[in-house]
C-alpha cells in the first residue's frame, strides 16, 4: 500500500467516525452506559494495572506472596489467644480459629478495597494529570488486587477447613460466592466514592482509616451472631445491625463454611437479606459512579 493510499484510508476511517463531544456527561442512564463502555474498552489496561499492583507490592521481597498471609495470620493468632483463650469466647464458639479466620478474610477484602481505593487516585496522580483514562479503573484496580489477596487467603482458609474441620456439601455453600459478591460490590461502591472525594478533601483517607478501625467491631468477626441475638433478641437495634452489608456478607460466609456452627442461631431469611443487600449495593455502586463521573472533571487540576 503506497503512502497516499494509507493517507486516504486514514482519512476515510476518521471521516466514518462521528465527532464525539468529550465533555458531555449525558443523563443518568446514558452517562452510565457511556462510562461502562469506556471502562470495558480499557479492560486490558485494568488487568495490567492489577498485575502491576500485585507484582510491585512483593517485588524485591524474598518471601513475596507469603507476606499477604502474614497479616491475617498474625491477626488470627492475636484474636485466638486474646479473645478466644483469655476472654473465653472459645467455649461458646466451636472451631473458634476457623470462625475467626473466615471473618478476618472477609473483613480483609473489604478493608483492602476501601482503603486502597480511597488513596488510589492520589497514588496515580501522575497518570490522572497526564493521560486521559476512565479514572474509575484506578479504584477498580485496587479492588482487583485486593481480590487476588483474598484468593490467596481463601486457599489457606479452605485448606485449614479441609484439614481441621469439614465441609458441608449442601446448598449452603452457595452462600459463599453470594456473600463475596455482596462484599465486593459494596466495598467497590464505597471505594469509588471515597477515591473521588479524597481528591478534593485529603481528610477522607484518615476518616476512612478510623472508620475501618471502628467498622471491624460492628461486624461479627471475633464475636458470633449468637452473642448479638442473645443480647438484643431481634429488636430494632439488631435489625440495624443486620442491615449492614458487611455484617450480612460475613455471616453468610460463616454460614457456608463454618460447619462447626451449624447448630448456632442464624438470622432468619439470610439468603433473602443477602440478595437484597446485593441489589442495594449494585444501586449504590451505580450512584457513587455517577458522583464520581461528576467530580472527575476537575481531578487533574485539584491534584
Amino acid at each position, binding site marked *: 500500500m503506497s*503512502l497516499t493510499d*494509507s*493517507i486516504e484510508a*486514514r*482519512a476515510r*476511517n*476518521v*471521516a466514518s*467516525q*462521528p*465527532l*464525539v*463531544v*468529550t*465533555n*458531555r456527561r449525558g443523563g443518568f442512564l446514558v452517562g452510565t452506559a457511556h462510562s461502562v463502555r469506556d471502562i470495558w474498552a*480499557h479492560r*486490558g*489496561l485494568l488487568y*495490567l*494495572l492489577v498485575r*502491576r499492583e500485585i*507484582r*510491585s507490592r512483593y*517485588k*524485591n521481597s524474598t518471601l513475596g506472596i507469603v507476606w499477604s498471609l502474614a497479616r491475617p495470620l498474625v491477626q488470627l493468632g492475636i484474636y485466638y489467644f486474646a479473645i478466644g483463650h483469655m476472654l473465653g469466647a472459645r467455649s461458646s464458639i466451636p472451631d473458634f480459629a476457623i470462625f475467626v479466620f473466615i471473618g478476618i478474610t472477609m473483613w480483609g477484602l473489604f478493608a483492602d478495597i476501601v482503603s486502597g481505593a480511597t488513596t488510589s487516585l492520589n497514588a496515580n496522580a*501522575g*497518570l490522572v*494529570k*497526564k*493521560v*486521559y*483514562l476512565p479514572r474509575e479503573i484506578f479504584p477498580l484496580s485496587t479492588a482487583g488486587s485486593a481480590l487476588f489477596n483474598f484468593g490467596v487467603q481463601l486457599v489457606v482458609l479452605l485448606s485449614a477447613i479441609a484439614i481441621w474441620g469439614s465441609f458441608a456439601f449442601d446448598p449452603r455453600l452457595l452462600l459463599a460466592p453470594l456473600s463475596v459478591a455482596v462484599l465486593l460490590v459494596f466495598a467497590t461502591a464505597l471505594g469509588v466514592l471515597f477515591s473521588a472525594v479524597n481528591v478534593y*478533601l*485529603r*481528610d477522607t483517607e484518615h476518616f476512612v482509616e478510623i472508620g475501618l478501625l471502628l467498622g471491624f467491631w460492628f461486624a461479627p468477626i471475633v464475636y458470633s451472631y449468637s452473642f448479638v441475638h442473645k443480647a438484643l433478641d431481634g429488636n430494632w437495634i439488631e435489625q440495624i445491625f443486620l442491615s449492614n452489608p458487611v455484617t450480612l456478607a460475613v455471616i453468610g460466609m460463616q454460614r457456608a463454611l463454618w460447619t462447626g456452627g451449624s447448630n448456632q442461631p442464624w438470622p432468619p431469611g439470610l439468603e433473602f437479606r443477602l440478595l437484597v443487600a446485593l441489589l442495594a449495593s449494585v444501586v449504590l455502586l451505580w450512584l457513587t459512579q455517577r458522583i464520581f463521573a461528576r467530580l*472527575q*472533571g*476537575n481531578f*487533574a*487540576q485539584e491534584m
Partner: protein
Amino acid sequence: MTQLIAVHDVSKRFVLHKDKSLKERLVNFRTSRRHVDDFWALRDINLEIGLGTTVGLVGHNGSGKSTLLKVIGGILEPTTGTVARRGQLAALLELGAGFHPDLTGRENVYLNGSILGFSRAEIDRQFDAIVDFSGVESFIDTQVKFYSSGMYVRLAFAIAVHGDPDLLLVDEVLAVGDEPFQRKCMAKISQFQAEGRTIVLVSHSAEQVGSLCDRVVVLNAGQMIHDGSPSRGIQILREGYDAELRASHDDGAGHLDFAYEIVNVAPTTTIDDGRTRLVIDVDVDVNTPKVDWGLGLEVENTLGMALYQMTTFEHMTLPNSIGRHRVRIAVDDVPLGPGKYLFSVGVGSSNGENFDRRSPAGAFDIFGADHGNGVVRLTPQVSLVDAAAAAAD
C-alpha cells in the same frame, strides 16, 4: 479536509483553594470565600483542526497553552463550551507518566502502551521496533528504577511514537535524549506528518514550531490572539515578549527606566550589481551607565530559525557616556538566498546582562538568485573535468 477536533467556545476557570484540609475549611468557614482565588485559564476558544495538519500552540508562561492541550486531550474538562473529537488519540504530555519503577522495561512497555491506548496485539507486534528505537535492548529486563534518566525517557518516547494515532498531542517533550536520538525523534515526527496524522504541539522553541508546524495558534492570557501562519505567529509571540519587557520597566508614569534603551532601529538595503548591502542604524540612549555596553544582532528566517549572531564586543568598545549614540552595522554583501529575513537587536553588557532588546527589530528582503535556491547564496563554478586526464596527472 476531514475535521478531527472541534473546540467550541471553550473557557476554563481554575479555582485555587488555599486551604485544603477539613480543619482549615472549618476554621476559615466564614472567610472561606476570601480563600478562593479563581482565574480564567482559557477564554472563548474556538478552534477547528483537520486531519493531516500540524498545529503549534505557543504563548508565554501561563498563557493557557498546556491547559488547552489538556482540554483537547480530555484530561481537563472545560468550564463552559464543548470539545468534540474523533479518531485514535495519543497524548505525550509527560514521558513515562505511567512507568512503575519496580517493573522491568518489558513490563512497562506493555503497561505504558496500554495506557496510551494500544491493544496488546499491537504492542506484541511493535515490541521489537520499540526496543530497537529506544536503544535499551540490553536493559529491557531490568527494573526501570535502575535506568539512567536518558534511557527512561528514550524508552517512554519510543513507546509513544509506535502506536497508530490519528492525533498526537505533544507537550514540550521533543527535546529528550542525546543528539542522535533527537534526530531520530524529529525523523519520526516528520514520518507522522507524511503519513497524514495530526499533531498538536506545545513548544517554547520558535525554531521547532517554525520548522514543524503549518499552523500556529498564539495564546495570551487565555485568549487566542493569532491563528494562522507560523511566521506571523512567531513574530507576534516575540513582540509580546518585548512588550512584556517594556511593561516591566515602566514606572507607571509612562516613563521607562532602562539603563540603556534602544530608541530607534533603521535598516536600509541597497542592491548593487546583484549584491545586497544591508545597513542597520541603531540609536541607543545611555541613561545610567553601567560597566560597559555593546550591541548584539541576530538574523533569522521567518520561521524562527537562527542564521547568524554577532555582538559589537568583538569589534569595538562603545562610548559609555550619557546621551544618544548611533551604532551602524553594515554588511556589504549579504550571502543569503532569496526570501524574507528578520533581525533582532539587543543591548547588553559583556558579562551577559541584558538591558533592552527588540525582536524582531525589522525585516529585509533578498531578491533574485542566479545560482540555485536555499537559505545561503553561493556562487558555484561548474566545469567539466576530464577524468582520464586527471588520473594521468
